[in-house]
């Protein structure tokens, strides 16, 4: 293996791992406060990608309805990001309000909540299929792609942005959870939920905040994914979501650090397997590796302490 070849795959793995990590974090955040595996989360990512597609297409004047003027990309990009995060967070919060909270308040068994989550994911997916049709969508070019070639390595500016932005976002998330009072409340809930209201904290409010956080991160992942791999399909959320979910479990569900590490482990395994073997072996071997990790450490790499028994 030449060094060039290694670096090339390393960069690809960093990009792919970043997507998985960003989505995995969303699973783990909700699990941390609700002990709920939010199976709709992969489809929230899909909603993010499609919302970004519509807003980006509109703002770059490629939509049926036209703006009377062209916007410069320094306006289009932040506007697309903010609006997409906002709308996707609304969808995430709506699911919590419409589906999960009423069930929770009536003391439903957790299995029903998980199945409801799964069904809401399917609802989003097939709702998309019904409304938008089966044809793929082309994600708009929010900025021009530049390809750099250094020796045998080619890197696009998109890859660099995706990797750097993911790191930035995860850094911000880390700060929110560790340093803000909302983050502190989230951590407290994951340890002993019943003691939290005794501190004068509304648990529902923290849960809502958690959904906002997880969904807006999925939205960012959706935009970046669309920019890196511009073909959107209605079931993309399911395909990427399952992998991110598994990454979160391998990292230790409930642990943010675990979700990030799990995302990169899966990303690296997949890319490097594909680099040496036929790509049809990729996921077989990647998931065998994850199974082995779980067999050695069944609580995941960074299992979290928890008072309330699961």
């Amino acid at each position, binding site marked *: 293996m030449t060094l060039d070849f290694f670096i090339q795959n390393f960069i690809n793995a960093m990009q792919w791992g970043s997507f998985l990590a960003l989505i995995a974090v969303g699973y783990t955040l909700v699990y941390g406060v609700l002990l709920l595996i939010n199976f709709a989360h992969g489809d929230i990512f899909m909603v993010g990608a499609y919302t970004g597609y519509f807003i980006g297409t509109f703002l770059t004047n490629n939509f049926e309805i036209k703006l009377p003027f062209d916007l410069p990309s320094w306006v289009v990009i932040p506007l697309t990001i903010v609006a997409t995060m906002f709308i996707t967070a609304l969808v995430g919060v709506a699911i919590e309000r419409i589906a999960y909270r009423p069930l929770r308040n009536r003391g439903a068994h957790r299995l029903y909540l998980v199945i409801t989550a799964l069904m809401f994911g399917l609802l989003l997916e097939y709702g998309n299929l019904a409304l938008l049709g089966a044809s793929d969508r082309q994600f708009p070019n929010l900025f021009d792609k530049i390809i750099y070639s250094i020796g045998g390595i080619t890197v696009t500016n998109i890859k660099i942005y995706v990797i750097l932005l993911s790191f930035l976002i995860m850094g911000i998330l880390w700060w929110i959870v560790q340093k803000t*009072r909302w983050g*502190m*409340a989230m*951590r*407290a809930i*994951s*340890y*002993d939920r*019943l*003691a939290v*209201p*005794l*501190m*004068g*904290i*509304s*648990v529902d409010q923290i849960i809502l905040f958690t959904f906002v956080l997880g969904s807006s991160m999925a939205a960012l992942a959706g935009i970046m994914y669309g920019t890196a791999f511009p073909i959107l399909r209605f079931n993309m959320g399911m395909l990427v979501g399952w992998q991110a979910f598994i990454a979160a479990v391998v990292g230790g569900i409930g642990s943010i650090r675990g979700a990030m590490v799990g995302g990169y482990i899966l990303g690296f395994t997949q890319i490097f397997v594909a680099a040496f073997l036929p790509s049809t072996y990729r996921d077989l071997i990647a998931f065998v590796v994850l199974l082995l990790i779980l067999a050695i450490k069944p609580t995941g790499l960074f299992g*979290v*302490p928890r*008072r309330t028994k699961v």
Partner: protein
Amino acid sequence: MLLSIKDLVVSYGAIEALHGISFDVEEGEIATLIGANGAGKSTTLWSIVRQITEMGGRVVSGSIEFKGEDLLKYPPHDIVNQLGITLVPEGRRVFGNLSVLENLKIAAYGRKDNKGIEEDFKRVFKIFPRLEERKSQLADLLSGGEQQMLAVGRSMMNRGKLMLLDEPSMGLAPILVKELFENLAKINQEGTTILLVEQNAHLALRYATKAYVIETGTITLSGTSEEVEKNPEVKKAYLGT
């Protein structure tokens, strides 16, 4: 009357745990509710802080009034933030994954007055100097006694009017128990009314001015601590004399 409970009936599913209990707590006093295992002491306290549903129970009938106002219409977090009622729960329940300081900070969640919060940290650390020494340590790593101090410290962070304590002496060495109760008396003198739930009747009666005895969901005796202490039934059942 600060707290007034009338004919409170609470059930867990089909099982009735409180069969219509009534009692009062007056402003400024230390009142105690003593009773054996399973008598319904914790059930009473979780009902007051409006968290009995989370525990799997339900207030069937009766009323709980705080300063003459119906307490049952407040959501749990407002019981703390608006009414100033705090519970030091059975088994301490400190957040083990948070530092000592964070445990205190989170207890002041509803407050915006940073200056006042700082003052209250000082107040807590003055009463429990050991917490200050360990303030950046995870609460999980504290000893049982230190965790109990932290649990009490947490409930001091709201400048609460009423502090409910559920068996604070449980699992503590006698010397620590004495220290803790002296501190509770101090907190009481600083203006916090206390409702103390205990199995350790000796101890509770020594510090409280008024006492209620609860037996399997019914209050069987009430009066000043002296009266209750002299009662032959109590002597036999709870004081071991």
